[in-house]
């Protein structure tokens, strides 16, 4: 028999998601008696990574105007950055920070703008081209240059297996919710931290995710009266691994990997006597990939993520969205993303990214921005980060746009537009002048490293640097930097990549 995770309340907040899905949130801790609240302890910060393919948005389309950068600050000798407070601009019923960062004024409210950060000038310092895991620190396995060959686990997995993050796994059904396209990478035996790094298979069904994270478990045993068989299944694998039948060493390692997975199933089964009453299961058949289906699909995913966070069945989600936030039916990759310098493709890129921002990113923020107690909302206790695959140029990741929301339980200062590019220097990218691109768009200015952003995210999740940093490799991710770029940075940029990004620490 299942028991509710927390006392239910007669006052439920119901969030209505797009696509007809209604999610009933089962409780609001603020509605608990004051005594109970005083005793409550929030579980710790949460992390949501959202990623979209391509990028190559002109700065004037992606970022707030430079007139909003009211302050300058020399963070390292020879490297000056700029910041300003985010201010939305209203036009009719719309509010915007930039052409991409535009949504209905009711959604992009002043309240949520104060919880955003827009970060410009975070560089992966080599030609990475297309990648999946680069968003979260795995710079290998790309279609670009040959610089980084060794895959590493992504930061979500570092958090997931850090004792500093999940101090307790009580009630946790999935350490990481991986949804959409693959983006998260882990070792084959993440608990033991052994084995090769492989993609974590992302779930493509909000319904399946709901069943796994929120719904009443269906698979504990063939009948509810019997003990789950997980213990015996685990024993079966150990029986083979430790038996006297001939196996290779690599066979045994493979069994170890599987045993690690079964351990996790066993742990979750023990936790599955709890359920999150009141949540509504998404309908079957939701799919992504087109402009007409993406909205309902990703908003349903958002519903499940929020429900899981509120139920405490997970605290990390990574969502790699498919392309398709557009009506273009030709070859988006070749004829839009690669032609980003031309006006029509750039317009299509802006439209698609604006839809993602409004339909997915802001939708999640709104759903998370409900009271969690102690004067905070779930969003306040979360770090949501949206990154794009490329920076100013398709294939290049210099200037990876990062839009964040939430303060990670008081760790991050929000409401800022920060331009980390060195305002005192720049260098011209080899590009002809015939493309009719505004002067400012033709220049890439060295900023700070994307590694520093990744380390900042880890620290915001309270993961100590000692857990993830390699000697002489501050920050997170392979520190490779192309020679042509190295000369453009002042020494402090690399030396301080392990620190929290300037101006972000609350």
């Amino acid at each position, binding site marked *: 028999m299942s028991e509710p995770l927390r006392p239910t309340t007669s006052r439920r907040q119901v969030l209505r998601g797009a696509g007809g899905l209604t999610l009933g949130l089962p409780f609001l801790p603020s509605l608990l008696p004051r005594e109970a609240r005083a005793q409550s302890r929030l579980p710790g910060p949460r992390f949501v990574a959202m990623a979209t393919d391509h990028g190559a948005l002109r700065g004037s389309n992606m970022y707030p105007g430079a007139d909003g950068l009211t302050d300058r600050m020399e963070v390292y000798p020879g490297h000056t950055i700029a910041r300003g407070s985010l201010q939305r601009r209203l036009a009719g019923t719309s509010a915007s920070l930039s052409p991409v960062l535009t949504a209905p004024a009711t959604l992009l409210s002043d309240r949520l703008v104060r919880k955003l950060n827009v970060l410009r000038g975070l560089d992966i310092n080599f030609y990475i081209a*297309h990648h999946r895991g680069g968003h979260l620190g795995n710079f290998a396995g790309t279609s670009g240059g040959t610089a980084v060959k060794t895959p590493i686990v992504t930061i979500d997995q570092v958090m997931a297996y850090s004792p500093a993050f999940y101090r307790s796994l009580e009630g946790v059904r999935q350490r990481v919710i991986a949804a959409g396209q*693959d983006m998260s990478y882990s070792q084959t035996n993440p608990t033991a931290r052994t084995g090769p790094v*492989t*993609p974590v*298979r992302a779930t493509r069904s909000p319904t399946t995710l709901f069943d796994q994270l929120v719904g009443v478990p269906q698979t504990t045993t063939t009948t509810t009266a019997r003990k789950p068989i997980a213990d015996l299944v685990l024993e079966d694998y150990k029986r083979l691994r430790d038996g006297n039948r001939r196996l*290779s060493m690599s066979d045994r390692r493979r069994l170890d990997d599987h045993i690690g997975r079964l351990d*996790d199933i066993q742990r979750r089964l023990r936790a599955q006597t709890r359920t999150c009453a009141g949540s509504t299961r998404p309908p079957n058949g939701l799919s992504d990939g087109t402009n007409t289906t993406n909205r309902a699909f990703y908003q349903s995913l958002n519903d499940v993520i929020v429900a899981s966070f509120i139920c405490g069945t997970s605290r990390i989600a990574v969502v790699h969205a498919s392309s398709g936030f557009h009506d273009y039916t030709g*070859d988006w990759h070749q004829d839009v993303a*690669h032609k980003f310098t031309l006006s029509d493709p750039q317009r299509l890129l802006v439209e698609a990214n604006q839809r993602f921002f409004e339909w997915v990113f802001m939708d999640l923020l709104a759903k998370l921005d409900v009271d969690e107690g102690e004067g905070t909302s779930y969003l306040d206790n979360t770090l949501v980060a949206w990154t794009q695959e490329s920076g100013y140029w398709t294939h290049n990741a210099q200037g990876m746009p990062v839009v964040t929301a939430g303060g990670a339980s008081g760790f991050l200062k929000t409401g800022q537009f920060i331009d980390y590019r060195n305002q005192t220097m720049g260098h011209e990218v080899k590009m002809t002048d015939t493309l009719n691109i505004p002067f400012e768009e033709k220049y890439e200015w060295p900023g700070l490293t994307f590694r520093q952003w990744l380390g900042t995210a880890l620290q915001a999740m309270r993961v100590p640097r000692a857990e993830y940093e390699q000697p002489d490799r501050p920050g997170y991710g392979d520190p490779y930097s192309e020679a042509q770029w190295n000369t453009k940075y002042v020494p402090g940029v690399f030396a301080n990549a392990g620190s929290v990004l300037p101006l972000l620490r609350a």
Partner: protein
Amino acid sequence: MSHTTRTLVLVALTSGLLGCTGTIGDVTGDAAPAGSSPSSSAAAGPGGSGPTSEPGTTGPTGGPAGPVTPVAPSAPTFSCDANAVPPSLPLRRLSDLQYTNAVRDAIAFALGGDAAAAPVMTALQGALVQLPVDDPAHVPEAPSGSYSRLAQDLAQAHADAYYAIAVAVGAQLGRRERLGTLLGTCATDAATDNDATCVDAFIRRFGERVYRRPLLDDDLAFYRRFYGGAVTGGIDPAGIGDIVAGLLSSPYFIYMVEHGETAQPGRKNVFSLAPQELASRLAFQFWDAPPDDALLNVARSGALRDPASYDRELARVLADPRAQKTLDEFYSDYFRLQDLPDVSTSNAFKAFAGTDLPMSMPALRQDMKKELLDFARQLTWTTPARFADLLTSEMAPPRGAALAALYGTPGSTTAAPRPGFLTRAAMLLSGVVRTRPIAKGAFIRKWVLCDSIPPPPDNAANTPLDTKNRSTREAVELLTEQPGTACAACHKTMINALGFATESFDALGRARTVERLFDDNGKEVGQRPVNTSVVPRVALDDMRTASGPADLVRLMAESGKPQACFARHYFRYTFARWESDTPDGCTLERLRKGAVGGEDLRGVVRTVAQAPAFKERSFD
């Protein structure tokens, strides 16, 4: 595969239309004939520095170093060292398809047939959809393209799905009304003193099917424990359900567990496979399914150790219709049918397509895929032909209405000869008004010939073609073949010509003699003659000319390179791992010889199962 996933996967082979190639190949050199490592990007092996290295093929710039002679170079071969010890894949996981078929087979076995299993499989859909899909994108060595079977990762989602499916099957089969079917009358008669024996018999019988080998006594004792106690007072259906779930969760069910049988003299840690293990290899290789009763019986008798009996079983397995369906999976990956692009709905494309663009583009795409699979089926099974015929045969399988309309009426001016698979619409469709000769050429160079192409300069793909009043070929030449540029070193010698040769077909796969030029509004603004005359340099020092697609595929077939490359492809598909030229040389050479002409395609398919490597395993 979703559009986005496919886009990412395809980047390596298709991003080259614009500029100086963009990303022609992924950095892992996935299709490179790379000696001992798939991560190598050197041009080795056939046409490279392997056993039969050819002059002029090892330089990263691809330029012919030696004197140019208009003769065909000798065909590549592999070196065979019979004492070499091939690596083995650790505990090979069944593919998603194989696993699903194994679940169906187990249920059908328990319930007495496929018809009885069907409703149970339907009821299991909620659990089955949790199983991660294996596709080439999950092959770390080559995310831009390989074979689904090579996806051997074990994610938490796999383990979760295996467990959920096993429990769900147990819940379905562990029902009182099914006890008699599963266990026999001993489960439903009035007597209870035979119940324990009845359960044991079920474990042995069902267990052998699931394990694909007989259970040992300790296995029996172990699975009894899933019942949850002694069998007293009648048989508990839920206990039977948990036994079923336990057996379906077993590593013997989920993996191809092989212990080997007899040590191979002089080859350290190499053992012949036990008959049951061999039966599993045969069945999963050619049926994507577990062994049937007949194969299990032959294995149980030990007769599979006898070469003549083995060959008889192999012939029976290949004669089963499932073998054709399974080989479709290989051909689908070999032809890269998952990469078929989407089609633009721009005004320009609509004007370009004209009345040939059917209302249902999905139907046309389906016709295109079906044509290639039917083509391969016919040449492999119906009228077995040699591998070269895959490249050169004009055999035309019956086509769907949409594709037939596109190709034109036989005998008309639009119905041009279509030799081999490279001239079929599925290989020509670009999705936009213009063809993509760079992508076509890169595909042939890397995927069909197994040559590697050096990585392009950064951001090369970001320079658009200047197509004003130019044919696609002219625009590509202007951008990528300027003398003295880094672009030309690869494009002029390795890539473009292979794509230009089929410019006699447009972006929808229709035959043409002129290229019509359109503006963005769909207005035809001019025409340019099509030029398919090329020096394809199939081997890089082969300077013979080709006047069009027929010449190109003839030169390719004569070179022996596609055959050697095909050997690599079929090796990967069979062994679910990358080849290593030295220890795998014997198997590769056996396949290559078959493909060059010693065997028809059916024989090539068969010969892999007769290779020693198929019948043995190393335990390093």
